[in-house]
């Protein structure tokens, strides 16, 4: 699920950036630092959308670096249990398959794949129904439901299922 929230961060800026463009430099550095990171608390920071407020800088003793407390708005993505996501399959093996929904990695183990789909090994391992009409392989797009998340301080990993109504392949690259 996506959220638009305000976060705060202490930015350290090298004295060489001081000048007319200090604010721009600060913002671009913030984006570089923050976007794409993941915190267990808020999820993945997708994009910084604006700056709320930049506080007074504080010169650090000895280094000349200046610390600015920056409040910024950003879009975060946080997967939840029970959430339905669309994801791209990145790897298939006999244990199941891995998929990515943006920054989130999702693992679907083979017993959460419908019983009528069977693993086919080969150079393009895949899961296929007995009549061959549905195939899950690398780069397939699947709709899945998250049934478990593992949230660490800097990492979120999910396990999903496609063993439910309206879940499964939504766009097969082989047929396109």
């Amino acid at each position, binding site marked *: 699920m996506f959220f638009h929230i305000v976060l705060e961060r202490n930015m350290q800026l090298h004295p060489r950036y001081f000048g007319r463009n200090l604010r721009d430099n600060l913002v671009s550095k913030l984006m570089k630092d923050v976007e794409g990171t993941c915190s267990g608390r808020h999820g993945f920071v997708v994009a910084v959308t604006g700056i709320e407020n930049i506080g007074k800088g504080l010169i650090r003793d000895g280094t000349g670096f200046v610390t600015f407390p920056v409040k910024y708005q950003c879009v975060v993505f946080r997967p939840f249990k029970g959430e339905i996501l669309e994801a791209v399959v990145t790897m298939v093996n006999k*244990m199941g398959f891995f998929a990515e929904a943006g920054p989130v990695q999702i693992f679907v183990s083979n017993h*959460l794949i419908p019983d009528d789909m069977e693993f086919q090994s080969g150079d393009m391992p895949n899961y296929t129904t007995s009549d061959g009409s549905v195939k899950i392989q690398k780069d397939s797009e699947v709709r899945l439901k998250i049934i478990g998340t593992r949230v660490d301080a800097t990492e979120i990993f999910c396990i999903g299922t496609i063993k439910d109504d309206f879940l499964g392949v939504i766009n097969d690259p082989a047929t396109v």
Partner: protein
Amino acid sequence: MIEPYNKLVKLAARAFYDDLTSKGDNQLKTGRSDNRGIAVVVLDALTRRQWVREEDLAKDLKLHTKQLRRTLRFFEEEKIITRDHRRETAKGAKIYSAAVAATADGHQAAKEGEEKVKLHTHSYCCLDYAQIYDVIRYRLHRMKHKLKDELENKNTLQEYICPNCGKRYNALDALRLVSFEDEDFHCESCDGKLEVEIDKIAAQDGGDGDDNARRRRREKLKDMLQKMEAQLKPLMDQLSRVKDLPVPEFGNLQAWEARASAAVRAAGGDINAGDSKMSQLGYNGVPLPYRGDTKVVVDFNNTEGEGEGFKSETDSTTLKVLPPWMITSGMNLTKEQRGEVKEETKLDGTSTSTATQDTDDKKSTIAHAHNKNIQDEYIKAYYAALLKQQHEMEEATKNQLSNALVAANPSSNTSNRQVGNKSKREEDDDGTEWEEAPIAGNGNEGYKVGDLNVEAEKVPADDEDDDVDWEEG
């Protein structure tokens, strides 16, 4: 108080540990080494004891110490018993023996081989009722949970196990386990190939998971769940019964010994006196082959001794005169039970109590002397109406039934009539009607007086018995 817990233990033993075999896996299972059911025997034996030395228990059960110890270790792991090991001299063993003697009177025989001077490690064990209650509840919860999860395909977190080092992972670790050389998951510590742990109850039908197989499996699961509910019902009932009862606590071995020996001293140091006292209280540890219900003897009239309490147990088979409002059309009753005869004499207004009328009856007669007249009027009218109605209703059935029954029992003794009906009668009794039943039924039939006396006398004790009985279920 401990009895419901003991029942719980017995039920659990039969439900969960019935087919437990404690043997080396490589052993061939011959008829001789087949020791299933030992667990049940051991647990049952423990319900009749408190702390017990394991050698004594082995001796009592005629088991080999090793075998018993293996079973006990298993139960310790299951958190069902607590054990205590200590090194002690023969003197220490005597402290225990004294404590045992205080609680169990059949253990004298076990004492003979204890004159050892050497320091020995003795193990003691005891049921841990508080924990047992939790263990059983947890176990039931897990069983139900697992079945339900699988039924709803919610058993989602696939587990993997490393066959080399036994380390376990689940699907949430998948990202760290995947290797790019091959398609398997690899153990983090030993790099062995992980295997999917199959803990599913319903057999995996290979890979042919077509719709039919799936449905079959669902049905199987549902069936299993239902069966579990049905078969474990007594256990769950017992759990809920036990829920609000205080847990019997023996404390640890030292505390228990101290308490037991204190009890001996309180009983005047006479071990035998202590014995009888304890066992009479239904204290746990009387090694009878079968222990009946806890007997609570309440002395109502100050005339009944302990013997009365026991007597009542055997006498409880006697039929009682049923108050008329409890007689329904479907019952097989004798004439006396119906209280028909008494009605007639009542209506005469000359209900003379005979000399042998029991004290209980007298007491209530005096107490109710004032109300009696008013009540009698009312009751008479009421009974008469009721009887009339029932007469009509049962005219046909009664004729043949009562005839047959009276013919079968021409003597005045009602005690062994309609044995099959007895439990039903008792069920219907609830302390309130005794006040009137003897009044109404006693003082008129001379030939029955002796019989009725016995009945009335044991009434209070019987009441208590009943209570415990039904709790026991």
